[in-house]
């Protein structure tokens, strides 16, 4: 539980516009991790083999843990009485600010690896863009990056195996990369408050610059496997809005317990 009223918060040192911009950034980061974690948890019990079941379930728990820590920071910045659970569970589907890439449902294993591949590398490019401007975020990001390193190792190992694992695996992987590649750059949807975030040192580079770094990382991973890069698309202001029906379903799943009774805890 986060108490907001009495405590002195690092967020109080920020001017109003920067504070709003920081809240916007935290919503995007937290919602990305939260939705990604819940989607991947859909593999629990049915992953391709038992060991992978434990691995993907553990990774999705990691993402939910990152989301929780980010929602806690957000609760401090918003200071509107909502705690991390309220932020995670008490919003309508159209209020979530995750990237459209993460609207794609679990799908088959190739869909999951393609989505996770695009997202994990994009997340790293974004985390590498967080500066020291807001100390609580900088400190959290340092810890999160140590855990995300393993997530990238895991997804790159699987990208390699699907790409070289025979016709069927490669065909499915190529189809999944193609279907999700169009939405992959939505992780870098420009933020309304980007100028304030850059001026205050919360961000050290723009989303557009982070996207360029991400594309370089994609090239390093995809070219040796003979796989195509996703198309360059004009960034859309709606990259984190207009969510899919698949997300509506996921939302109804992950809010089910919370909605079953007012103020329910576990």
């Amino acid at each position, binding site marked *: 539980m986060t108490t907001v009223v009495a405590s002195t918060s690092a967020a109080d040192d920020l001017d109003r516009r920067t504070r709003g911009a920081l809240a916007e950034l935290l919503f995007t980061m937290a919602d990305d991790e939260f939705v990604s974690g819940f989607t991947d948890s859909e593999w629990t019990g049915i992953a*391709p*083999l*038992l*060991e992978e079941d*434990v*691995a993907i379930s553990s990774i999705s728990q990691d993402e939910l843990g990152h989301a929780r820590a980010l929602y806690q920071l957000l609760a401090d910045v918003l200071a509107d009485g909502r705690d991390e659970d309220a932020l995670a569970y008490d919003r309508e589907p159209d209020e979530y600010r995750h990237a459209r890439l993460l609207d794609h449902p679990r799908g088959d294993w190739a869909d999951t690896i393609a989505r996770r591949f695009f997202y994990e590398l994009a997340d790293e490019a974004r985390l590498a863009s967080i500066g020291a401007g807001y100390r609580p975020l900088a400190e959290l990001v340092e810890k999160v990056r140590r855990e995300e390193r393993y997530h990238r190792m*895991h997804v790159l*190992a699987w990208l390699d195996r699907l790409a070289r694992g025979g016709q069927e695996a490669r065909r499915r992987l190529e189809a999944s990369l193609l279907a999700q590649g169009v939405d992959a750059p939505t992780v870098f949807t420009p933020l309304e408050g980007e100028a304030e975030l850059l001026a205050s040192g919360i961000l050290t580079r723009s989303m557009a610059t982070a996207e360029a770094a991400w594309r370089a990382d994609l090239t390093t991973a995809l070219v040796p496997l003979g796989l195509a890069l996703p198309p360059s698309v004009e960034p859309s202001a709606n990259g984190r809005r207009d969510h899919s029906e698949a997300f509506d379903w996921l939302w109804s799943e992950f809010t089910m317990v919370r909605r079953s009774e007012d103020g329910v805890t576990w």
Partner: protein
Amino acid sequence: MASSRKAASRAELEPYEVFQQAKEGDPMRHGGNVLAPDRELAVHYARELFGRRNESSRLWVVRRADIAVLEDPDLLDPPLDRSFKKPGGYVMRDKLAAARARAGTEKPAARATGHDRTGGRRPKATS
């Protein structure tokens, strides 16, 4: 833990034995095993099955086929009286204590200093 979801994939998976060290300086103990298609994923799965709850400071992951096994009963358990090879009936403790007193030395610590604390080779430090 060794099981797989599909009979078709079972043939491509191999067992790897996992040894874990709970904390720096402890001996490596057998933790269990994982099935994996190759060494890299075996290490990933060992990490998730034996390290995700901060219960290990080091893991050794060994392909079971690479382990030299000795289980020949002629070598390990021959049917002859070997009781004379056991130190039973010969109490060392008092003699050792007397010898230490003469030499003025302490009883050595359970963990020898100078040991590399891994029970064997120390892996290269990673970033």
